[in-house]
């Protein structure tokens, strides 16, 4: 069953004074199956982040539709949207987006508190997740007291504590050193192995080759996709690199 269906998505930005139109997404169609791990790749300005924002219901498309768990996002009202986002979607961002005013535990609790869960219930949920992510000892610390990798693991904990249908990650390794990035990617692998559906936007080849499927976006369209299939990580790495080279050199002419 497809947990996420995106069809004919189009997004046009109009500058404030009217004049220029910028087409961020031209015509994007793809779907993600339950339990899949999908990476979306593309250069800066290719429309990745716009796509992710629309998937997250933080932005609305000019035309086309997004169906998450057989619910059409454009049918939901603003009030229901945030509850839907809270219950069905988890986010991991490049810059962590942790609130400085909360310690890590409270940051992780945030979506649960918003849903009106009680403290014992939340505590029960956080313990196994924190143990799995290796942040049990630093839950009482504040974001500015811990390293980038630890911050990102806390952000992951926040994203998955609601048991979302879909985990969306926007350049999750972008602000991490290679050691922390490897750790985080292993975490994603583990989560996916446990059945979590993951959609990750990235331009790191290393991050992308952890996925089962890689979508390439250029100039607002899905340009190509690669399945991992039986390829090893190294082979997938080479394939992705080749595709990116193609995109950078002659891709535009072919499109």
């Amino acid at each position, binding site marked *: 069953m497809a947990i996420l269906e995106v069809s004919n998505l189009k997004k046009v930005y109009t500058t404030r004074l009217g004049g220029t139109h910028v087409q961020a997404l031209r015509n994007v169609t793809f779907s993600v199956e339950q339990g899949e791990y999908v990476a979306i790749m593309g250069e800066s300005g290719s429309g990745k982040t716009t796509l992710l924002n629309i998937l*997250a219901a*933080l932005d609305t498309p000019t035309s086309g539709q997004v169906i998450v768990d057989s619910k059409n996002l454009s049918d939901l009202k*603003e*009030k229901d*949207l*945030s*509850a839907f*986002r*809270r*219950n069905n*979607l988890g*986010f991991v*961002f490049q810059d962590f*987006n*942790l*609130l*400085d*005013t*909360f*310690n890590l535990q*409270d940051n992780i*609790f*945030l*979506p649960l*508190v*918003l849903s*009106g*869960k*009680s*403290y014992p219930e*939340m505590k029960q949920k956080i313990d196994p997740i924190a143990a799995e992510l290796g942040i049990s000892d630093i839950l009482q610390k*504040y*974001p*500015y*007291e811990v390293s980038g990798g630890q911050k990102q693991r806390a952000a992951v904990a*926040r994203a998955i504590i609601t048991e979302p249908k879909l985990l969306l990650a926007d350049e999750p390794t972008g602000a991490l050193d290679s050691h922390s990035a490897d750790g985080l990617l292993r975490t994603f692998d583990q989560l996916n192995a446990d059945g979590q559906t993951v959609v990750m936007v990235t331009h790191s080849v290393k991050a992308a080759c952890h996925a089962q499927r890689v979508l390439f976006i250029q100039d607002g369209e899905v340009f190509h996709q690669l399945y991992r299939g039986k390829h090893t990580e190294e082979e997938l790495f080479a394939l992705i690199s080749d595709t990116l080279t193609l995109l950078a050199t002659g891709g535009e002419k072919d499109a």
Partner: protein
Amino acid sequence: MRKGFYMRFAAQNLQKNSKFYIPYLIASSLTASMFYIMCFLENNPGLEKHSAQKWMLHFGAIIIGIFAVILLLYINSFLMKRRQKEIGLYNVLGMEKQHICRIFGWETLYSYFITMACGFGVGILLSKLFLLLLCKLTNVTHALSFYISGKGMGITLLLFAGIFLLLLVLNQFKIHFSHPVELLRGGNVGEKEPKSNWFLAILGLGLTGTGYYIALTTTSAVAAIKSFFIAVLLVIVGTYFLFIAGTIVLLKLLRKNKKFYYKTNHFTAVSGLLYRMKQNATGLASICVLATMVIVMISSTVSLNMNVNKIINQTYPHDYSIDIQSTNPKFFQNFLKSLKEKNTNHTFKNEHTTRYLSIQANEKGNNLEVPNQMEQYFNCKTYLFFLSAEDYTASTGIRLSLQDNETAVFDFTKKNRLPDTFSILDSSFKQTAALKTSPFASNISPTVMENAHVIVVKNHQILNKLQKEFQEIFGKSGNYLSALSYSYSFDTDGTDAEKVSFLKTIQMELSKECKASAVNSNGYSISSRQDGEKGFRNTYGGMLFLGLFLSILFLMATVLIIYYKQISEGYDDAKRFQIMQKVGMSQTEVKKSIHSQVLIVFFLPLAVAVLHMIVAFPYMTKLLRAMYLTDIPLFTLCTVCTVAIFALVYVIVYALTTHTYYKIVSSAN
């Protein structure tokens, strides 16, 4: 680098940061102009030297001066915080610190010139207006002259040169000891969680509590003016500590309560407030203190002025009132006779004479103790005025029939009654009647009134006996102390000016008479309604003027602090706003949450100010009573109105600045 580069650069900076600098320059200019106006009024040649008014204006100028330093320091620290990123950028782009310092030097110089130019412009224009206001309020008819005060300008130039130099030096230090990368990150350095400082919180609570206790337990306003001043200082310091440490301790306690804390509404509010309080505690405490001052000043000075006519009528029921105490029993009659003979062109109407024996004592149960040491005697709290029934009837027309040891008593305040039976010196008396009418035409001083009683005895024999007993305990000096006093009041016809000049005639006549009688032990005092009225209007009007003037200044500071607070919070909140939305709060939820936090932060100072006012109220009524204002309902009304108007202004400022705040928050989205 090209010539004039720094100058142009500095000018550009001011322009670029106009959102911050325009309010800053407006504030500094207004403060400068108000300081100039105060100096101008104080140095006005039309003002009498060493008058209460001159002293009040001088006091006002000092307050404005101190205030200017604090206000500009506060705004400067805000501006520097906001411009950290900019300074870091210059540094990274290759400017040396000395270059940046030079730019700041020029900026400060520009600010100084703009402040002085605008300050003097506005100050000179408005000084005429304030001059007229002062004349109107103090009822001065000979108009004080309008001029441009060179001395005032000089002092203002010097004061602000000093302030700006101080700011410049502080900023140079800041720039010198900073690292470019830290500066570049600017406000985004992880805001450390505030520590709960129990010591400071408890100290704040203790200081405020002690201040409140002193204010509430003070019984006599005049005697305790010093202790009340201490109470005010305690409460001010306590308020700062409570805002800085107390709020954080309280919020942290709330956070420890898991059941309370992990609720949708409380969760973001408590942590958000914790963060806000850390940044704004000083600003909020300042608003609170300023608001309290404005409310106290306006409500008391306005009610004094609204009641000034009543106060004058009560204090001076007659045009003149003369008190004479002399060991020569004929002295008063002789004086009056010669006064009337020499001034046949003046009428003597509504004459009223009271003859009495005045004794001070300490109440010890039923015994009214009269100490035999001069110093102790004059420190006695209870004032007793003994009259014979005959003299009482002569003054009031009320007939009394009393036995030898019986008295009829008039108590000036209902609260303090004499015991039913009491002994004084070697006599003891029994109260048989409570009198409703005072034998005196005019009110006695409010400070004396609290413990003053008129005691009417049967006849002159008893009064004489008392007089003798009193005289004996002092020996020789008892001669004078035990002499009978005459209180004489009357009205005349004529204009106010004539009446004032007649006062001088009476004074001369009396002092001449004293010399002629060759008795050293004559004491007298004269008061005239017209002369007293001038004094009252002068003092009360001057106080109202000062109150209004300072209130304008304080209100301006309040508005400014609020404005800067809103702007700085707007920038900080924008980021939080975004994150919360991404994590699953709807836009309306986020707005509601932020709005309620802003509201609490905003109205907390006002609420505390009102609380301070409520606690100060009983003391204020006592203080006003000492200033002859007894109309407590009027003062209550004035206070309520002042609070209401102040709250209204506050809400308007809030609404206007909130607009700016939301613009900042949503533009970042």
